[in-house]
């Protein structure tokens, strides 16, 4: 019996978790300075400065290291975080390196304004089509008895790209500003849907109106650990 117990504990210690110990993985979401502080006019090719008063994301089905976190609920990424982003959850996992992160950007609600030369236009849009992100280009290292961080990074500037296919798109706002058809200072989903995309480049996608174009752009906002890309697909 005694020898059997020794044999068992020896076999158990051959398992990776025993050999390497455990650590914690923490998942955070960050909207970078573009969301927390705004997109400065210098970064926008037609000179608009864009600010967000709310940039609320609903992230669901967040999984890493074989663990799925509880859905954190809506997170407003405009809250200043000094570059840390906001915590979504954490889990104890075997100390190791993980490249299996996945998540769903289920909903994005943005409110804000754009300003240029004394003109100010507001917007309040919700993108409600969930987009799954998986096979992400990142590896999260979880040290023994320490914490590894996996960051979901949201790129707000993608919402204003002038191309869905260029490797070097410009950030523009003039065409969106021109969609304020009733001149009331608010650019609505209905107005965008009634406006042709003009010189914007949708690639092979049969997109003609600005709202559909923004929906397609919104689906590209999800990244990991800064500039890391994932494969993505829309649900539904």
């Amino acid at each position, binding site marked *: 019996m005694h020898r059997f117990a020794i044999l068992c504990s020896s076999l158990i210690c051959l398992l990776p978790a025993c050999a390497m110990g455990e650590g914690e993985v923490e998942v955070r979401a960050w909207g970078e300075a573009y969301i927390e502080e705004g997109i400065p006019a210098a970064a926008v090719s037609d000179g608009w400065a864009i600010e967000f008063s709310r940039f609320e994301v609903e992230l669901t089905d967040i999984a890493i290291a074989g663990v799925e976190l509880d859905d954190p609920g809506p997170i407003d990424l405009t809250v200043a975080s000094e570059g840390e982003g906001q915590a979504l959850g954490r889990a104890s996992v075997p100390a190791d390196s993980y490249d299996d992160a996945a998540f769903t950007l289920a909903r994005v609600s943005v409110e804000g304004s754009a300003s240029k030369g004394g003109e100010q236009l507001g917007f309040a849009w919700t993108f409600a*089509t969930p*987009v799954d*992100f*998986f*096979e992400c280009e990142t590896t999260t290292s979880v040290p023994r008895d320490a914490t590894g961080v996996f960051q979901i990074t949201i790129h707000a500037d993608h919402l204003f790209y002038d*191309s*869905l*296919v*260029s*490797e*070097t798109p410009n950030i523009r706002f003039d065409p969106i500003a021109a969609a304020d058809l009733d001149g009331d200072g608010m650019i609505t989903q209905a107005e965008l849907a009634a406006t*042709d*995309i*003009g*010189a914007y*480049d*949708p*690639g*092979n*996608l*049969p*997109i003609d109106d600005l709202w*559909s174009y923004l*929906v*397609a752009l919104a*689906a*590209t906002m*999800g*990244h990991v650990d800064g500039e890391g*890309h*994932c*494969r*993505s*697909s*829309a*649900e*539904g």
Partner: protein
Amino acid sequence: MQRGALALFVLTLGCLPSEAPRVELALVVDGSGLATSATDLGWTIEFEQVRMAIGELEFTTAGEVHQAKQASGGAWSNAGAVLLGLVLPSAHAHPGHYQGGEVIGELPGAFVLDFIAGEGAELGKATLIVGEYTAANFLFRRASADELEPGDPLTGHTAILAGTATQGEQAIAFTLVIDSPADRQLVGAPFEATIEEQSEVELGFQWLSADPYEGDHFFDGIDFAALDAADGAVDQVVILIDPERDPAMPAALVDAYDNLRRDFQTHDLFDIVTREP
């Protein structure tokens, strides 16, 4: 899809006991995609000039089919191909338009294609690994002076399409000069072929004046008479150029140019076919 992927792929295969067989096939200009046909507004289009500058051709296998239900197979989040499922009605999915496939053939270089005067002209020998092909990618370029005759109007531009639009007694000469963004890649032009070691075909690069699957003419929605009136001189001549080159261009012409350039830069109107040499 990475340029140079073929080289890497071949290098990888080179480590294996036997190298993947490959063939070299001529890629030629195939003007048979141009047809004198009518638009949805009743204008019959006859082309006199269709030329374009392209380069860096890649030939691919597999990838993501351009169809809503299969789009969930994934697309990189930084690519424009994302969210096909959101915007593509599955009833109108084109067969064979794959995106993100593996590059197993290539024809690097810069080319100017003339689909009328240059019918059958060879662009070069494409190197293709034996296999099933589904699509092709290439870059739109701006033609440079050193590859054209002096004063050629294509210089500095991506494409010129010129001809006559006729409706009843009315005939309007049109010229469309397209400028694509730098390094704008077209992904997923249909290229459905089985390439074998014994293949003795050549590849024909086509530009199609009408979408073969949906029947749309490239100039659908363009009212040439209205554009002729909008350009300030009712002279039966319509010239459309990039509005950035003419800030004073009337809105109707700007809209027409934007729509035509958008359609020109999609894979719907390109095809690569195999044909007898």
